[in-house]
């Protein structure tokens, strides 16, 4: 349906077009969205725990976690509120390197990302490994600000950005695909921007 009087003034150049998923627009800034107040987590108080169900496998404090191999990832990110931002530059620890340090193979096919504020989001384990995702510690070379999820956030750039949980404090392997916070509140269980899986019921 064409909207009377609406023109494509903001249409991106065609070379950019191929990088913008359906229904998204290009954003230069970096908007902030979250369900509650911004937690201020001090690195002294920070820890990260890998869990299999309720059972902790390994916990790292901030110093230990920062001693893991750091990897750079520069990726386009896509927020479900319809903005896409090109070439965001992150550094952090690949989930592969976390698993290697814990000396395990992924024990189950599903994972819940856990945050300091109680937020959770579910991601299939295979979307987190093989270089696809990291626990990011730096954005554009600087510590991630609290607004953007610092000290550490998950980065799963190929899914809508709510899957990249802010204020991350753990990953929990689960036997079943358990919906997280937004997934229980009307958002898609998987969230692939290229298939426009925004809300529950999207194919």
């Amino acid at each position, binding site marked *: 349906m064409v909207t009377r009087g*609406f023109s494509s003034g903001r249409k991106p150049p065609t070379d950019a077009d191929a990088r913008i998923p359906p229904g998204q627009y290009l954003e230069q800034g970096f908007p902030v969205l979250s*369900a509650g107040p911004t937690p201020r987590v001090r690195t002294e108080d920070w820890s990260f725990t890998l869990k299999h169900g309720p059972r902790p496998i390994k916990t790292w404090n901030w110093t230990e976690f920062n001693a893991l191999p750091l990897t750079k990832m520069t990726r386009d990110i896509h927020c479900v509120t319809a903005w896409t931002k090109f070439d965001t530059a992150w550094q952090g620890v690949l989930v592969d390197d976390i698993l290697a340090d814990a000396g395990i193979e992924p024990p189950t096919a599903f994972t819940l990302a856990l945050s300091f504020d109680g937020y959770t989001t579910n991601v299939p384990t295979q979307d987190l490994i093989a270089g696809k995702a990291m626990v990011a510690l730096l954005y554009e070379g600087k510590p991630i600000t609290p607004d953007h999820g610092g000290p550490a956030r998950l980065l799963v750039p190929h899914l809508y950005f709510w899957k990249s949980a802010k204020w991350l404090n753990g990953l929990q392997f689960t036997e079943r695909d358990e919906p997280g916070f937004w997934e229980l509140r009307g958002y898609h269980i998987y969230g692939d921007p290229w298939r426009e899986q925004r*809300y529950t019921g999207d194919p």
Partner: protein
Amino acid sequence: MSDAPAAQSPWQTVTIARIEKRTPRVTSFFLQPSRPFAYRAGQHVDVRLTAPDGYQARRSYSIASAPEAGETIELAIERLDDGEISPFFHDIAAVGDEVELRGPLGGHFVWSDSDGGPLLLVGGGSGVVPLMAMIRHRAARRSAVPVALVFSARVWDEVIFRDELIDVHDRRDGFDLVLALTREAARRPSDYSRRVDAAMMEQSMLRLPAPPRFAFVCGSNAFVSAAAQALIDAGVPANLIRTERYGV
């Protein structure tokens, strides 16, 4: 056996039934859905516009009307001069025009009278919109849940829904309006002429008979960050605070 209905597009065409200017920069658009549209106070919709060459743009807008309001859905849209969608609504959209709408969306920033209270609502600018739906829902249900709204606007004339809010306040049935004008002197005894802060939150909570059971904060990202921090500094537990950030 009848055939299963074909899968419906989540988008529906809605017609602009009425346009009402609220403040110099905010205008309400009353949309007539083409199929039944049930929602909860606090939810939002996505609006989609399509250009002749197929280019589409979409944005989210909170619903201002109460679920009980009847057929049309009210959106209150602030004009951002260099924006893409809000200037379209302000400068081009006319009664009778059609746009596409998807929703209702969002299952977190919602309240219904059965959730109880007291409620502390904190809105900045157009961030009052989903809070207005809650206040209207409370009124439509004749709910006795105590509610305080702290509403920050730059000046008196930019207080969206001002007359209606003052009317509800004047009923003295458990709703209190506190205005925080950031660029003008306060006019009502309960109002402030400064930005929201912890002291203002503490004083506003004293208007409620008991500490709030939920606090809802909505507005620009900068406003929500400041207001949520003020609530925490005023002693509101973080897990009672729900936020809706308009992103920019």
